[in-house]
């Protein structure tokens, strides 16, 4: 700078004209997405001043498919396969919330074994979703081993889900009235051995990724979202828990059998990108603990599904039920009008709430911190657009 000042002083002495730069010219506009793998199906424009981000404009809606409107033309069972499309890695949690809403509206009690099976499927799904997210978080911070390992270990959980439901990702397993199918013979032993092995693998993730000094330097103290701001912006899930708020729908509003299980709500108080990346890791350990308890407490036999008509009639009325998904609270608001098809379905998803924190966190940070902040928000564009 001193060199530049010297040049300007010399120019002034020579009475040359130097105009001050226009503020708008200083800023450069960059477009991230929607087809860039670094953003998912989501576009946001950022303005940079040198290396610093001064303005962020998120532009969701690239993969909007109107599935709330689609629900109004189909009955509850037909809704299940297309409701799980937005996040196919977390399909059981999405359909869980919808099933709870339908059961509340119509007045169905689910058999006890069915409740356990649904919770088991949704916990396995939460693990496989979090691993998928972790793989992406790893590769965009330049850690390709962290892409390979979770993507491979996901197979352990997908294998279990395939044995339970029949499909690897779009399970369509949790439906109104209970679980689609009973677990096959010898499933419990298999589930325990694979989940226990998976929990040991998490220690290796700690060694190679979370305790890696390079990752710590890139994420610690980056994108700080204080407790007050997190509550004000209305973020949810791991983002909220990383800001020091121990909020988990499984604990706050227990559904099905979650009030019988013993688990802690994991949270951190450091509020930075590292906390937002590490809270899902703590959640995965807690999920393994929950899965072992479910297998231990599950009734040996019994019905898993309430026998229902294909066209269940909705009584007039409305309901709202939410569950804890991989990305935070996920709820469905359902309005019935006496016909088999819902009058209105409104989804409240965690991704869209977490998007609100994106401009807040990115403004003022360096361009190089963008992937570390953006992917730590646990944001899934397809779910937010719906």
């Amino acid at each position: 700078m001193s060199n530049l000042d010297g040049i300007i002083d010399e120019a002034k002495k020579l009475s040359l004209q130097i105009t001050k730069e226009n503020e708008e010219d200083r800023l450069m506009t960059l477009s991230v997405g929607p087809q860039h793998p670094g953003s998912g199906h989501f576009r946001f424009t950022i303005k940079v001043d040198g290396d610093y981000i001064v303005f962020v404009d998120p532009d969701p809606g690239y993969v909007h498919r109107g599935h709330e409107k689609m629900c109004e033309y189909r009955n509850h069972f037909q809704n299940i396969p297309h409701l799980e499309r937005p996040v196919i890695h977390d399909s059981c949690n999405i359909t869980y919330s919808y099933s709870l809403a339908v059961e509340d509206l119509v007045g169905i009690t689910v058999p006890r074994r069915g409740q356990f099976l649904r919770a088991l499927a949704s916990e396995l799904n939460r693990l496989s979703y979090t691993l998928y997210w972790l793989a992406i978080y790893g590769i965009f911070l330049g850690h390709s081993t962290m892409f390979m390992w979770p993507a491979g270990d996901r197979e352990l959980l997908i294998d279990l889900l395939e044995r339970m439901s029949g499909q690897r990702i779009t399970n369509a397993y949790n439906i109104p009235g209970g679980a689609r199918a009973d677990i096959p013979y010898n499933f419990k032993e298999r589930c325990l051995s694979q989940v226990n092995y998976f929990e040991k693998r998490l220690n290796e993730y700690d060694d190679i990724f979370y305790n890696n000094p390079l990752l710590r330097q890139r994420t610690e103290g980056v994108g700080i979202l204080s407790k007050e701001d997190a509550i004000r912006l209305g973020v949810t899930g791991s983002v909220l828990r990383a800001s020091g708020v121990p909020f988990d729908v499984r604990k706050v509003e227990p559904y099905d059998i979650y009030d019988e299980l013993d688990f802690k709500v994991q949270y951190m108080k450091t509020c930075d990108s590292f906390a937002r990346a590490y809270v899902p890791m703590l959640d995965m350990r807690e999920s393994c603990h929950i899965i072992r308890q479910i297998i231990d407490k599950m009734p040996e036999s019994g019905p898993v599904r309430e026998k229902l008509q294909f066209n269940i009639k909705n009584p007039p009325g409305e309901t709202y039920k939410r569950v804890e998904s991989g990305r935070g609270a996920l709820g469905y608001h359902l309005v019935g009008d006496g016909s088999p098809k819902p009058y209105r379905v409104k989804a409240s998803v965690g991704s869209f709430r977490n998007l609100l924190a994106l401009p807040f966190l990115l403004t003022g940070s360096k361009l190089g911190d963008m992937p570390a902040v953006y992917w730590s928000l646990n944001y899934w564009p397809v779910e937010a657009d719906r």
Partner: protein
Amino acid sequence: MNTATGFIKALESGSKHIVMKRFTFRYPQEKLKFVGDGYQFDPKKGVGLAGTRGRHILFHDKCTGCQLCAIACEGIAEAITMPKVDEQWKQNKKSIMPQIDYGKCVFCGLCVDACPFYALFMTNDYELASYTKSHLIYTPAQLSVKPKYDGDVEIKIGKRGAHHGR
């Protein structure tokens, strides 16, 4: 944690995998083993029997042409149509049977849940790729063929980590 120990631990946990077994398997030569014959549904109990949801199998001697599978699919994928067949069955007066377009099918299995006569189940066959879209439309005659599937690889957990073994 100290920076040096952090790096050393990271390197150690990575280099340990030199002696671990390979988790992946060579797909076309080796194939995954499945439990059972595929997803089935018991309409009397109203519960499914767990199994892989692959291509369907249609039992011509049980299908009554009631179209419940096509009605169930209407709001999901619209993959099932009911064409006429040249067969005479006592229970099927109209001689219509489901024909499934696998270019549209999402393999949710709700058509199997809808069938009250044990006529439509699913099998382990998932290798349905073809060169043309028209080859993905399976006629009732094609659906009645039982697929041959001989996968024998599944996840095993040993001392050298998880691997796909026989």
